[in-house]
């Protein structure tokens, strides 16, 4: 009972006469439509969450991977000398695109939120910070070893300590979104299978009559398959439209304060991804109903 391309075309084109042989089931049809719509609505959010988490992981990873900081922790009289030595080392280090020491004013600005604007930096043992821009080929371990030999007061921070968990969390959130979407698809398959089994059992008499007059199994199965496929397709289409409107109405974050909660949504061609949901729901319904019909028809004499 494999579905060929021609059969699929016939399935979509429909057959008014064939559609009528199975009695209408108003309440079951409405439930199937509602369930498909609700699942599609949830799937839109799962996709939006997954895509947003993916974007966040990529952005955090990219932003943090391109920067590193060097702290020069040395007595005040050696600080300038070691800073110059460190900058000289960085100039010859592969993978370091740029490096510059922060000025006193910039360091004071960094500390201002905690110590106020009038902080006398000269009176405090504040380390000198060197800001680095890194690129492909940067080897933090090799640089640390070289600095330990040539600039004893230098401490390299490539942001890996706090970058890793953040990127990992965002990546897992992305995977979780896809897992949720997959579970929703599986739930649609289970729901359609249950509904199709119920419909086939309730219509055992109809099937007996159809067989008596020479209907083939594929004809009988298609009468049910087409019905459930179209229900899943139309229900999911409504659910996707509702989901897209809901996502579109979500508040968005500014460029200065991007976040996961304010970043849930689609961007560019990402808006087209949810349009696949009704097609997937229809395909799942088609396969689920066909499998249920094959099993049920095989069990009936």
């Amino acid at each position, binding site marked *: 009972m494999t579905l060929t391309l021609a059969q699929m075309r016939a399935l979509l084109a429909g057959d008014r006469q064939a559609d009528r042989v199975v*009695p209408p089931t108003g309440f079951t049809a409405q439930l199937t439509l509602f369930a498909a719509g609700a699942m599609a609505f949830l799937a839109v959010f799962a996709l939006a969450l997954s895509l947003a988490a993916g974007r966040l992981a990529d952005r955090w990873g990219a932003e943090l991977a391109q920067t590193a900081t060097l702290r020069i922790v040395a007595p005040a009289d050696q600080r300038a000398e070691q800073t110059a030595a460190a900058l000289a080392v960085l100039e010859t280090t592969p993978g370091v695109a740029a490096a510059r020491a922060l000025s006193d004013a910039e360091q004071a600005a960094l500390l201002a939120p905690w110590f106020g604007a009038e902080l006398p930096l000269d009176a405090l043992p504040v380390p000198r910070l060197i800001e680095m821009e890194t690129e492909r080929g940067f080897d933090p371990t090799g640089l640390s070893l070289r600095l330990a030999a040539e600039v004893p007061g230098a401490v390299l921070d490539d942001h890996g300590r706090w970058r890793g968990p953040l990127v990992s969390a965002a990546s897992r959130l992305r995977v979780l979104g896809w897992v949720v979407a997959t579970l929703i698809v599986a739930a649609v398959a289970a729901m359609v299978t249950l509904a199709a089994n119920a419909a086939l059992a309730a219509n055992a008499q109809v099937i007996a009559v159809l067989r*008596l007059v*020479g209907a083939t199994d594929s004809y009988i199965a298609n009468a049910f398959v087409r019905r459930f496929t179209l229900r899943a397709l139309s229900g999911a289409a409504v659910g996707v439209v509702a989901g897209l409107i809901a996502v579109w109405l979500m508040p968005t974050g500014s460029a200065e304060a991007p976040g996961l909660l304010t970043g849930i949504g689609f961007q560019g061609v990402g808006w087209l991804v949810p349009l696949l949901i009704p097609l997937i729901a229809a395909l799942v319904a088609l396969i689920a109903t066909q499998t249920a019909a094959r099993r049920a028809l095989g069990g009936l004499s």
Partner: protein
Amino acid sequence: MIELENVAYSSGGGLLLADFSVILAPGPFHFLTGPSGAGKTTFLKLCYGALLPTAGHVRLFEADVRGLGRDDVALIRRRIGVVHQDVQFLDHLPVADNIGLPLTVSGRHADAAGSDLGELMGWVGLEARAAALPPERSGGERQRAALARAVIMSPEVVLADEPTGNVDWDMSQRLLTLLVELNRMGKTVLIATHELSLIRAAKAQVQARVLRIANRRVQLAGADL
């Protein structure tokens, strides 16, 4: 056409039909008689592939049913018209659509064959009942509709299982006349019935071969029938 050779059929551990051979050749009018529960319906189901024999061979149009898939059997059923005592219809469809159902499932829509359908409904006297739903019609009208449905594909064989079981004498005579007309058109007809009066009435109109089920065996009946 339909050949049963050394056939036996058992169900639930009990033997229902034992080692018999029957050939339904093209043309003749057959009766199958025997008491209720003798196995008449089982015999008919063997004849249209609804049951497989537990021993022996059933050949439908020269094809052994054991070698046929369900879809093959479905295609063969389009060549065999079946009428049951408990007429089975799709109750949500009008009588005309039920009669045209064999055309629908074979991809030949009843609309395209409207004239045939109309002619057939006239033949069974149901032209005024086309739009009615089956549950709204009487037992006799439903039986005539079932007969029309059984012959709409111009089958070579018509099998009728107690077709007059739920109708009065006048209606059973009317149905019998229709079946005799079919036989005169060249169709092989087999009627399973326990009503000997129906067999005697038929013999007045047509030469009939009578089979009887006795002691789980199908055999040719004697001159007493």
